[in-house]
């Protein structure tokens, strides 16, 4: 869908997914790394657990469908080349600390001089300006400051950070959305612009009930284990794993199902017809439901529930998901060729699969500087010039 859109990515963990999303939508994403490769190549897990810049599975996942070049921004020649690259790009995605590019005279004001239509997306922990703009963060710190970690975990113990780079994923999604909003505006006759994305703020506007409860009821949302804030959902143990169940919807049907197995205990009693009693005595319901689920198999129970329109789901692991029949039927997972490995690797697919029947695959992440000749060639540099720049340490 974004065929012909040229994106330059100068990004660490915070913006890798932004570039990946745009690449999955068909943009030509050129990843700019420092000579020798970015530090994100040192993040595990690694192929056969051997740390190596070309064996980071983390790097593999986040950089599919991107072309890779190297550039030393700390040399004057490198800066000139960067300006040339920006000059032919529609979008620049960058995650440098605020002020870092300005110091090298590569800030937005300078870059737009050579490319007024440029859309520059800056993703930083707290934003370009303001009292915390120089504060440092990690995924954990951004997730904490955005309010996401406080509401995860058990009630009586410390907050739990969600698994994976979920704060960075939110920021990356907003960055990609912002880029295309601005691109449409520009392509319909508007100017280019700078978009300042804060990871903390991206988390803070994606908190479901948290802000709503405070504004409407003056309530501070707390963590409560796997029990959903609406108290309508909870994780239950089964014989072979865990399942996510709703407990308060379609009450009669739920009790009937449990009674068929002889495990409804006292829930058939008329007093439970009152939804207020169900809510106030929820711990009892949870105990009875749990005794029942312990006798069940996860997948069978999910099927039984879904047939009756209960929004139930098995608590899957990546292992069980890899063989999921529904995802398989939709061709979600894709095989990505890794010539060096001698075999293709199964990757999670794109949320935006092609709908023209074309095959779903991806190009593996680039090696360090793999596309230097091609990309710098497109800028008009000869093979010799590129080789010279390599030996001078610019590329």
């Amino acid at each position, binding site marked *: 869908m974004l065929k012909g859109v040229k994106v330059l990515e100068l990004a660490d963990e915070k913006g890798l997914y932004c570039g990946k999303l745009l690449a999955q939508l068909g943009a030509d994403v050129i990843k700019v790394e420092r000579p020798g490769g970015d530090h994100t190549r040192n993040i595990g*897990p690694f192929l056969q*657990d051997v740390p190596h810049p070309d064996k*980071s*599975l983390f790097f593999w996942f986040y950089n599919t469908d991107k072309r890779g070049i190297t550039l030393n921004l700390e040399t004057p020649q490198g800066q000139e080349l960067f300006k040339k690259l920006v000059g032919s790009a529609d979008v620049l995605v960058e995650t440098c600390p605020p002020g870092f590019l300005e110091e090298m005279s590569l800030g937005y004001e300078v870059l737009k001089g050579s490319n007024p239509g440029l859309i520059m997306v800056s993703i930083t922990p*707290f*934003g370009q300006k*303001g*009292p915390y703009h120089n504060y*440092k963060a*990690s995924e*954990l*710190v*951004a997730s*904490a400051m955005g*309010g*996401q970690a*406080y*509401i*995860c975990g058990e009630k009586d113990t*410390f907050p739990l950070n969600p*698994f*994976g780079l979920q704060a960075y994923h*939110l920021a990356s*999604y*907003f960055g990609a*959305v*912002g880029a*295309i*909003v601005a691109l449409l*505006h520009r392509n319909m006759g508007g100017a280019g*612009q700078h*978009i*300042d994305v*804060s*990871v903390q703020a991206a988390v803070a*506007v994606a908190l*479901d*009930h*948290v*802000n709503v409860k405070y*504004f409407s009821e003056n*309530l501070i949302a707390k963590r409560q284990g*796997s029990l*959903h804030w609406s108290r309508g959902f909870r994780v239950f143990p089964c014989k072979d794993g*865990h399942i*996510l169940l*709703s407990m308060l919807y379609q009450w009669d049907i739920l009790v009937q199902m449990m009674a068929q197995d002889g495990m409804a205990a006292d829930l058939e009693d008329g007093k439970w017809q009152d939804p207020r009693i169900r809510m106030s005595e929820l711990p009892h319901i949870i105990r009875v439901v749990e005794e029942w689920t312990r006798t069940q198999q996860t997948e069978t129970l999910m099927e039984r529930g*879904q047939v009756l329109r209960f929004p139930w789901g*098995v*608590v*899957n*692991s*990546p292992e069980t998901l*890899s063989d999921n029949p*529904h995802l398989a039927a*939709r061709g979600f997972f894709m095989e990505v060729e890794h010539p060096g490995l001698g075999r293709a690797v199964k990757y*999670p697919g794109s*949320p*935006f699969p092609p*709908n023209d029947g074309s095959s779903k695959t991806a190009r593996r992440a680039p090696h360090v500087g793999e596309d230097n000749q091609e990309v710098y060639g497109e800028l008009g540099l000869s093979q010799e010039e590129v080789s010279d720049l390599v030996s001078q340490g610019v590329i």
Partner: protein
Amino acid sequence: MMARGSLEGLRVLDFTWVLAGPYCTRILADYGAEVIKVQSAVTDPSGESNLSGYFNTWNRNKRSVTLNLNRPRAQAVAKRLAALSDVVVENFSPRVMESWGLDYPVLTQANPSLVMMRMSGFGQTGPWRDYVAFGPTIQALAGLTYLTGFPGREPLGMGHSFSDHIAGLAAALAILSALEHRRGTGKGQYIDLSQLEAICPLLGPAFLDMAVNGRAQEPVGNSPMGQVAAPYGVYRCLGDDRWCAISVSSQEEWKAFCRAIGDPPWVKEPTFASPESRVKNALTLDKRVESWTKEHTPEEVMSILQEAGVPAGILQNAEDLIKKDPQLSYRGVYASLFHPQKGATFFDTTPMIFSETPAQLRRAAPLMGEDNEYVLGDILGMSGEEIAQGKRDGDFI
């Protein structure tokens, strides 16, 4: 005078409800698109009230028209509106739009450049297409719930419907990209977005560890993933349920951390000398760190460590975010709009600051059918009498 919105001139016909769909169209509305929410007291499966705080948060800047889509005349009106729209979005279970005669093949006949987004839990094809899902269901099925927890304990998962936000963002991104495609080619398209497929990739490296190394990843609590870092975690501070996150991932940060907390004797212990040994002795290290943090408020811990260049941040709750955080306040992350029945309504806005075309706050969430005259009259050219008759007949309710 407010700057022109980036998406001004685009019309979105919005059949969505609850969170994922409305979050998608909220983003489009914030940047200037005209979003018309199709509602009906008769066909609404959620029973959500236009006056709830929840509804107001996700539906500001939108208009509302009431169409009882069980009635043929309301269906015909919806078709005429779709013909005059750039985008149609819906997040029902599959077959609902078909049952109203509003599926893509029908709508595209009258409007070949239409972009139609269908964003159900599992997508429009496959054995689970008719299954029912809310955010918690998707998070469980996608692996997020399993991996968010502590090793060897019951899975906990996230405390909110995170996946609804991601699904909304994914849908907005796909719609915008389809509009860019249409600008270049003149062609609209139909997009089948599965919420499950928007969430699975968020655990990408864990899937690759399975595929390449045959390793089934397990929950790790608050430990860093794929990186050597310690101290790294959430530490108890002074006060009731007050915590600060700290992450030290380089030797420079470790030295800065030690200086910042006043170089107590324990930091010189050989067990904490290298990053590897700190990770190995993380449990002991965490206790030592906490012996310092629990003497301070999280605000103090954050400011002492950040001044020294060490990443640290308060585990902020709703009150911290909305009332105390100076950075979110500086960025205008929270704002209010006047609502004709509720008075001032407050909500979160956007994490993006656009230099040219900033997000707009034009009006609070609509009352049900508040814009019937505008939509049926101004857009479709129906007379006052036709609208009144439709209401009496039960078409526009």
